[in-house]
């Protein structure tokens, strides 16, 4: 515990914890009102209900703060609950706020000793646990006003649904599907402005967070403004990431923290199954905030030069490590490309080949066409994958393979197993020779007991796959079962060197002669 003697004089601040909390709660009221307008009275339960439940749960831990004058205690529990409540989807079941309030206050806050001592944002702890435990209830999005199930603009932006249908103005006002308090950028900006003017937040964290998301999204081919306005980014940047207890204190650390939040948010959005990366990004940055403050605290008096030297030394170590990694990765790519260059084209005869590979839910079967050593077409014959993910993925992969004329193309993000199955099926198709897979059917004739026996033999490459007796004049009762038994034996042995059927010797020999005749026609060895 910190325990040291204080000496004066001090500058006294009129702000109390209660006043701080009250002002932040006030700043969130526009978002609460917007939630009510767009998603109805149930949104009030989700937001204010979670806040009140949190206040009640905190009471046994901090009874001193509560009184008739301060029914909400110091307001921190109410604020934490409200933060969580506003991030809930409009379709969240009634027990989510109850569980969430418990997790926020007990696990996220009181376990670490109450207000001012928590290292991680309690609302985000609760939200993270809820998302990972109860994915379906936590992602039941609805259209504003009519409550119809809908995809969020963020999901549309990330290509998880068919098309982007929402415009900037709707995003700005909040007339879109999403978490109840996160949709209206206008309401959030009003609150943010209020906090900024009253010096409860500085510009560094929200601005660095938002700008880094915008810039990175641009590099990933996404409209930066859309990326910023969709999802919960505005809410997180203004209210979550700026939490006084869990964010850094020094100026430089705040910038780095904001950029870190932005980078990880975008990476999670684009490269993982989670469309919204805010929770995990900010939690990781919360845990790193103290490190940023320590490393970037600025030099003490007389230590400027020493600081510069330390930075140079560590900077070179970091730079050298990054260079080493980049070189290793580059070398691997070069080696792969060289290996690919050596095998120019596809060393197979012209023709059609089929192949099979294991996807996420079953086999993927495809047919390829090779002409003059080049792969000219690929068609997916059969698959068990989810259509809305697999169909666009197959289209992308086919284009990539045909364009680059190689198999080791990049997998499609969000369809890794399907992509791998597709590539495996391609490899399987290219492994075989055309003649092996070519289907041939030949007829043959042999002398039976009464007259000729004509059979049709089907070959797949060098495998006898079917035999059919087309014509015969033998006694049906005897020859019929005999032929059936012989067909089975020949297919099993893959040769005509099988025993004849007793009681139908001549028919058997005639059958086998006919099969041999057909095989000779097919040059079977």
């Amino acid at each position, binding site marked *: 515990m910190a325990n040291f003697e204080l000496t004066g004089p001090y500058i006294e601040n009129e702000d109390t914890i209660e006043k701080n909390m009250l002002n932040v709660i006030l700043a969130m009221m526009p978002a609460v009102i917007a939630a009510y307008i767009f998603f109805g009275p149930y949104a009030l339960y989700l937001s204010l209900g979670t806040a009140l439940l949190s206040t009640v749960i905190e009471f046994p831990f901090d009874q001193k703060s509560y009184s008739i004058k301060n029914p909400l205690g110091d307001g921190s529990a109410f604020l934490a609950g409200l933060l969580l409540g506003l991030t809930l989807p409009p379709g969240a079941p009634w027990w989510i706020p109850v569980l969430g309030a418990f997790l926020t206050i007990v696990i996220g806050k009181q376990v*670490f*000793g109450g207000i001012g001592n928590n290292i991680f944002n309690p609302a985000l702890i609760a939200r993270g646990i809820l998302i990972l435990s109860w994915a379906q209830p936590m992602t039941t999005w609805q259209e504003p006003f009519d409550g119809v199930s809908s995809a969020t603009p963020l999901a549309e932006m990330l290509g998880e649904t068919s098309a982007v249908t929402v415009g900037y103005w709707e995003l700005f006002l909040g007339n879109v599907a999403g978490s109840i308090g996160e949709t209206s950028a206008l309401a959030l900006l009003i609150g943010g402005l209020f906090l900024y003017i009253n010096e409860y937040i500085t510009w560094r964290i929200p601005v660095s967070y938002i700008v880094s998301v915008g810039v990175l999204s641009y590099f990933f081919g996404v409209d930066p403004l859309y990326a910023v306005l969709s999802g919960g980014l505005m809410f997180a940047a203004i209210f979550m990431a700026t939490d006084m207890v869990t964010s850094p204190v020094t100026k430089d650390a705040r910038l780095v923290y904001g950029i870190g939040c932005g980078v990880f948010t975008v990476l999670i959005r684009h490269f993982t199954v989670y469309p919204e990366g805010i929770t995990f990004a900010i*939690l990781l940055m919360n845990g790193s905030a103290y490190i940023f403050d320590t490393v970037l605290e600025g030099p003490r008096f007389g230590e400027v030069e020493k600081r510069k030297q330390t930075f140079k030394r560590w900077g070179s170590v970091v730079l050298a490590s990054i260079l080493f990694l980049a070189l290793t990765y580059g070398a691997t790519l070069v080696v792969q490309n060289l290996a690919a260059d050596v095998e120019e084209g596809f060393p197979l005869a012209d023709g059609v080949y089929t192949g099979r590979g294991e996807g996420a839910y079953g086999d993927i079967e495809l047919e390829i066409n090779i002409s003059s050593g080049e792969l000219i077409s690929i068609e997916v014959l059969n698959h068990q994958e989810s259509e809305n993910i697999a169909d666009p993925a197959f289209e992308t992969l086919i284009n990539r393979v045909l364009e680059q004329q190689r198999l080791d193309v990049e997998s499609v993000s969000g369809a890794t197993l399907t992509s791998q199955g597709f590539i495996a099926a391609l490899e399987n198709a290219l492994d075989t020779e055309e003649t092996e897979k070519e289907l041939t059917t030949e007829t043959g004739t042999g002398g039976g007991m009464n007259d000729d026996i004509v059979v049709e033999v089907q070959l797949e490459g060098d495998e006898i796959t079917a035999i059919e007796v087309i014509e015969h004049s033998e006694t049906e009762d005897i020859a019929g079962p005999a032929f059936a038994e012989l067909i089975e034996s020949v297919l099993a042995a893959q040769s005509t060197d099988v025993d004849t059927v007793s009681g139908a010797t001549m028919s058997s020999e005639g059958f086998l002669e006919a099969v041999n005749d057909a095989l000779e026609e097919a040059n079977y060895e």
Partner: protein
Amino acid sequence: MNDILTVFLNSIFAENIVFISFLGILLLYKEARGLRTSFKKGLKFSAALLISILLGWVLAGWLPENDFLLLWVFWLTGIIGIFVLYSWNELRGSWLNLPRIIIALPLFTGSQWIIQHQNVEYFERIYPILGTVIGFYLAFVLTAGVREQIKISEIPGYLKEKPLLLIAISFFALALIGFNFL
């Protein structure tokens, strides 16, 4: 995302050797004290871990596919890595009448086992190896930082630092689960 990059990033984050695969947790408890010292100390431990894993990787390439043999090799290379640390004046002395080197064994041996059994081609294994070591260093520094924060915070006396550290580590695990790159 490119397969190799995915494997590399996942071995740092979503499959972090400490926060997700549990190895090295005792080592962090005993050695990750003080944030400023942890930057250098973490590098020492990471370097020794890298030496250990690289040795194990090379040897495993020559061995037949036998789990018991592999385990023994990884144990030996783990011991070698730990003795490298020992020569750098780390893990000296004893703890609870046991040689202090014992606290590092599960990490040094277990991490090699986990990497060996990943679904990655032999030569591409260098990426999860590097990622594992980087992930360990991050875990070392993050743990030291959080520990120091808990120590200097004004918490009531009945809340002890060590159990709180375990709970804080669970929150890191929570955060890292979200970094599961595809």
